[in-house]
């Protein structure tokens, strides 16, 4: 234990909990990750075939495909195409979509609100449900409430995403006929995909929240709080639950990334026009500018989310940034 002077303690309290060095370190990491992702996707797209093969109609002959490759510059050596691409990007020139001639980022940005709406709502709902059930299973007075909800959630977690989606469609669209199966023409289209994704988020949050609460249940500060005569519920909520939030926050941030990735499956299943569906489509049709733009945006979003989470964790627990 170090002794801190009253003045030092005051200064520490006034200082922002986020140090600039921490931000710089994190941002550099994000740039490297971005470059890595772009490189991998670029190589993957080209390693899986000359885009001209896909652009040409299926009845084109080998000669005609080669001519098309020449016109589009796909006949150049891969490293040259890659360096040209990077050089252009650093100058702010990004190729347009091969099929729509619109800027590739515009194509992706048009889909971002759809995916965010799906992802954020699912994470918020899933996390809320997870926190509630996690809390109940660790702290409820009622033995049934402590065991049943978390068991149900475990069961839900063991059902894969696409299968859960199919079950929900079967129940709510085909049997009960309450909700549409697919597409995006009204808010009713959102319910099933959001529930499917939330089913993926809630169990993880619930389990971590429960185990962290249980781990710290007998920590000294909680025993002290109890000894001071604070009510059991207040101890549970203010001292036990709040302190268990830091690791859960990190997890929720990571879930957001997971949900965006999982949305590829769910968007395809529910024919939902989001970034995931666009990414799949642009890879299949070799619209490489759009595929690259989508990956860059997803990577940026993921990094931003994890940066925000790190900042949030530092605010909750300032010791975190020096670890």
């Amino acid at each position, binding site marked *: 234990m170090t002794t801190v002077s009253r003045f030092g303690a005051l200064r520490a309290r006034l200082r922002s909990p986020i140090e600039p060095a921490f931000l710089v370190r994190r941002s550099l990491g994000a740039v490297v990750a971005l470059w890595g992702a772009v490189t991998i996707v670029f190589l993957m797209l080209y390693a899986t075939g000359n885009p001209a093969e896909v652009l040409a109609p*299926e009845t084109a002959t080998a000669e005609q495909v080669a001519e098309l490759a020449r016109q589009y510059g796909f006949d150049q050596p891969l490293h040259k195409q890659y360096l040209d691409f990077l050089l252009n990007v650093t100058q702010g020139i990004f190729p347009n979509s091969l099929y729509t001639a619109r800027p590739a980022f515009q194509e992706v940005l048009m889909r971002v609100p759809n995916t965010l709406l799906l992802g954020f709502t699912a994470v918020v709902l899933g996390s809320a449900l997870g926190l509630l059930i996690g809390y109940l299973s660790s702290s409820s007075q009622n033995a049934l409430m402590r065991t049943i909800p978390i068991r149900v959630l475990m069961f839900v977690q063991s059902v894969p995403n696409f299968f859960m989606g199919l079950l929900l469609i079967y129940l709510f669209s085909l049997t009960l006929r309450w909700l549409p*199966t697919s597409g995006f*023409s009204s808010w009713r289209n959102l319910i099933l995909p959001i529930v499917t994704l939330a089913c993926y988020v809630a169990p993880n949050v619930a389990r971590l929240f429960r185990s962290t609460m249980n781990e710290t249940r007998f920590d000294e500060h909680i025993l002290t709080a109890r000894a001071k005569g604070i009510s059991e519920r207040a101890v549970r909520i203010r001292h036990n639950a709040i302190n268990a939030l830091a690791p859960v926050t990190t997890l929720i941030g990571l879930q957001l990334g997971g949900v965006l990735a999982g949305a590829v499956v769910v968007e395809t299943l529910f024919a939902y*026009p989001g970034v995931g569906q666009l990414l799949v489509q642009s890879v299949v049709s070799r619209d490489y500018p759009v595929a690259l733009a989508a990956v860059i945006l997803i990577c940026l979003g993921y990094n931003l989310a994890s940066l925000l989470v790190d900042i949030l964790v530092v605010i909750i627990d300032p010791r975190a940034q020096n670890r």
Partner: protein
Amino acid sequence: MRNKLLVAAVAGLIAVAIPGGGAPALAAEDTVTVASLPLLTFDPAFARTVQDLSIMSQVYSSLTTASFVDGNLTGNLAREWSDVDGKEFTFKLVPGAKFANGEPLDAHAVVWNFKRLMDPATQATVITDFNLITSVEAPDAETVIIKTSTPWLELPRRLSAISFIAPEWAKTHNPKVEVNPSGPYTVVDYDFASHVTLKRNENYFGEKPAFENAIYRVIGNNQTRVTSLRSGELNFANGISPLDVEQLSSLEDLKVGAIPGRRVHVLRFNMLRDNVKDVRVRQALNYAINKELITKTIYRGHTSPASTQALIPGQVGFDETMTPWPYDPDKARQLLAEAGYENGLTLSLGVSEEYLQAPQAAQAIAAQLAEVGVTVELNIVPTAIWTSFITNAENGTDLVYLGFSSTTGTSTEVMNQFTSKGRYTWGPANASYDAKVDAVKAATTIEQQAELIREANRILADDAQLVYLWPQPFTYAISKNIEWTPRPDDRPRASDMRPAQ
């Protein structure tokens, strides 16, 4: 304050993302809802997928229209045409045709479109073979004359896939994402990832479609298409797996069916490999596969074995007298023994999920070949990397499972692929077949051309250059209250549908 900002942000996000429409698009009397794969472009210079071509043929006009129902070629913008020696084609156009913005769709507009397609700067991807065209001229507003360097009898049919856009309009608009229609429908609104909504074009010069509205809903996933059909959100879908065809046929509101499609499944040989260079090995594989059994089981009888030609009835030169290769495992064993493989032979086979039921069929093929002593190593490849897989002959498999079809129904589009110029021709091709296909292209009468095609196909079959399998079935489900004649080209058109009487 912070909470209010958050609420505002979420509300904004919801407002941006949720479309204005209320109830989901369910079938109305004057509307037909059709399942589509994701759309890529509206530009006729770049449209190559069946879904793009389907929309294109309904919002734009082409000179001719190829029917896949009976193989006939009818006029669209052209009311009649004639040729001199197959090298000089004169098309007489329907007078008074217009684009929606009032621009005339006359011979001058057609000439402009050809110039645009053939200009390297356009980087058009659809103009394969168009280098044969030497000039396109418009002596007057109703006449287009196209001259080619060599006879090209198939030109009028090939032109059925070429739609025209408006020259003046194109100067200030992006035809890849905007439409100035001249066809039976206009585009009301669209999102390539989710839907295209069409409305009847009252100014269309041809026959007006029966349904006022058509919605093409993008549903890439097979399972989702089936559930959407069951829930009544779709009036039409095709490309349904044969198993689902049976399941859907129990529903009261749907008519479900299948006809042999235009795409013929075959196995091709990697002729760089010594083990398939002996014609007896290639013949043995043809004898060893029980196509009858596979089409009855895996395809549920929705198709039948192909005869020894990769064409379908209705195509020029389709030979009615050709029959499927007989199933004779004893003969196969004997041929393999003669070729020196009495102790067995191992072959690798590349298969894509791209072709309907191909992975399942390939497993059955492997089992049948095992019975004659051929061990098959299966390589089942996802659609996304299939192209790279089949363009790399050195590292490729000994056999490849492929489906071949023609965009407009011409025979040479398919036959080209088996010559040395074919994209998936690995190693040396059959030289006399090459020569015969060149002769087919240079033919000056249809009768002569048909005879040459029959001869060419016989050369290919005698040399067992392919293992002939079956035409991929065209499977579909359609609401009972809609009338529609199945066409095997994977391009369902709302303009062909009408309410049932």
